[in-house]
């Protein structure tokens, strides 16, 4: 067991350290080193101007260094999580370096123009002082995104299946879809104001449109490209139209649908800022615009990072769902 674990974890580290130091995660040590460097530089050198959370950032970077130091000997006992950590070892090293360089160039030397580039402690300061507002913004954006994305995907998927399945639907629907598809979301704003009772509904519509259209196009393409012989086989086996749609056409086109879902996810995030321009009072997009207007770039970066993390998390989640549903594809792709 322990040898097996070492085989998976040891990697390069074991080859050099094995005789004297068995089971040391070398990249963990290096990461501890770079993070310690970032902490030391932050603490030791003076800031060109005050940024707020300098001490806190030094402490956090030091804590990071300590965690990596501890992990470098214990990571082997952490099972799956440990394997993931080891996989990202080089990233942790570079991240520490990046923090050190960023720190020095902004806070310590002031080489990068000031209002546009904020040092790490500047962002940290935003999280420390403005976390409650950010949290409310995340909740508002989450509501808007959730309503928009899921309704868009639902309608897009159903419409895509209809377009791919029925010739008559395709005759009328496809040209419309191709016309609507490339129109940027902001171009819809005037007419959404006219159509929808409130700006909130209009915002939901924009998000739904951004996520629904790629899903519809790719679902339609997937359904119409299903190998005809699958239908022939199913029909000789006694399948009716319902079975052909739900048990043949949809599963066969699911790989395409997921491509559409990934595209829709990215587009929906891109359109959030625009959607929250429509008189929203909270939300990450609103937060971005508000702070850009006041040149509070640290707040902008802080919100951008939150947004990027949420988007990455959702993409990750979608991958998990896809792998669950499309396990049969493994080995084909």
């Amino acid at each position, binding site marked *: 067991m322990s040898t097996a674990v070492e085989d998976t974890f040891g990697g390069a580290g074991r080859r050099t350290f094995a005789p004297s130091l068995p089971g040391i995660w070398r990249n963990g040590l290096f990461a501890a080193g770079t993070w310690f460097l970032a902490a030391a530089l932050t603490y030791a050198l003076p800031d060109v101007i005050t940024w707020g959370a300098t001490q806190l950032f030094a402490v956090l970077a030091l804590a990071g260094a300590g965690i990596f130091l501890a992990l470098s000997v214990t990571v082997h006992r952490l099972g799956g999580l440990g394997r993931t950590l080891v996989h990202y070892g080089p990233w942790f090293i570079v991240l520490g370096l990046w923090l050190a360089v960023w720190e020095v160039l902004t806070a310590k030397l002031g080489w990068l123009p000031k209002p546009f580039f904020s040092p790490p402690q500047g962002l940290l300061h935003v999280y420390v002082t403005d976390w409650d507002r950010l949290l409310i913004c995340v909740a508002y954006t989450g509501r808007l995104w959730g309503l928009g994305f899921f309704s868009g995907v639902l309608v897009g998927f159903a419409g895509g299946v209809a377009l791919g399945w029925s010739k008559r639907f395709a005759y009328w629907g496809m040209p419309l879809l191709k016309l609507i598809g490339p129109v940027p979301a902001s171009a819809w704003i005037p007419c959404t104001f006219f159509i929808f009772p409130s700006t909130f509904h209009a915002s939901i519509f924009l998000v739904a449109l951004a996520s629904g259209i790629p899903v519809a196009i790719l679902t339609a393409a997937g359904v119409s490209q299903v190998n005809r012989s699958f239908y*022939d*086989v199913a029909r000789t*086996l006694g399948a*009716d139209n319902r079975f052909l749609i739900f*048990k043949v056409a949809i*599963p066969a086109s699911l790989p395409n649908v997921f491509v559409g879902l990934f595209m829709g996810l990215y587009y929906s995030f891109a359109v959030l800022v625009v959607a929250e321009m429509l008189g929203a009072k909270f939300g990450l997009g609103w937060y971005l615009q508000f702070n850009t207007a006041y040149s509070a770039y640290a707040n902008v970066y802080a919100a951008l990072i939150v947004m990027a993390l949420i988007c990455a998390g959702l993409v990750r989640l979608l991958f998990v769902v896809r792998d669950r549903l499309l396990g049969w594809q493994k080995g084909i792709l």
Partner: protein
Amino acid sequence: MMALALAETAADSIALDVEGVSHRYELDGKDLQVLDDVSLAIAPGEFVALLGPSGCGKSTLLRLAAGLETPTAGKVLENGRPITTPNPDRILVFQDATLFPWRTVRGNVATGLEARGLVRERKHRIDEVLTLVKLEGFSDFYPHQLSGGMAQRAALARALVNDPKLLLLDEPFGKLDSLTRLRMQNELLDLWKSAGFTALLVTHDVEEALLLADCVIVLSDRPASIVAEVRVGQPHPRRRDDPNLVALRRSLLEKLGISHDV
């Protein structure tokens, strides 16, 4: 004994009559004549083999019998009634296995029962046919994890689980190694004897046709018309070195245009 078994079950199988059937495909506005005035009568419970050069229209004839297409001219009749739509009583095993890649072997085999809402009632049949085609250990495999021959056997199982009255087979053993092929031929023969369905088998293999069928039909090059219809009187089990069969084989090969001794 065998005749009795046949007589008992014959009521449950289908008489297939092809009357003056011609079929054309349209390709880029040009007509492609595939079948030319083909007529044949297959009695209930009979086993007929179709031989013919590649591309002559054998698969097309099976598609017509399955009801996937309607002939441009002529009639295809089951028990005297025209065939217009597919029906699970007549099952076609396609030339390529065409398994659904998103379903496991068991899921593929269950498709027909599922489509007709019979899964719960006939669950045992799924295990039976999987055992019959020696795939009982692979029921949870996905098609991409199967060999070509296994996929073909799974496709056969997917047809057999429906207890068809007419079984249309399009080179079902084409991808099997010669040993498995022999075994599957015997399994098919046993199954045909016990279940009593009508069978129409397309094959490239003259020996296979002679070992299995009551009647071997030879088709011409495209557009296919019937060149010869040969009755094989020999009782089962047949031996491939049986002098009668050897003579029949030679004459069939001649009719297929291969005159020298192969």
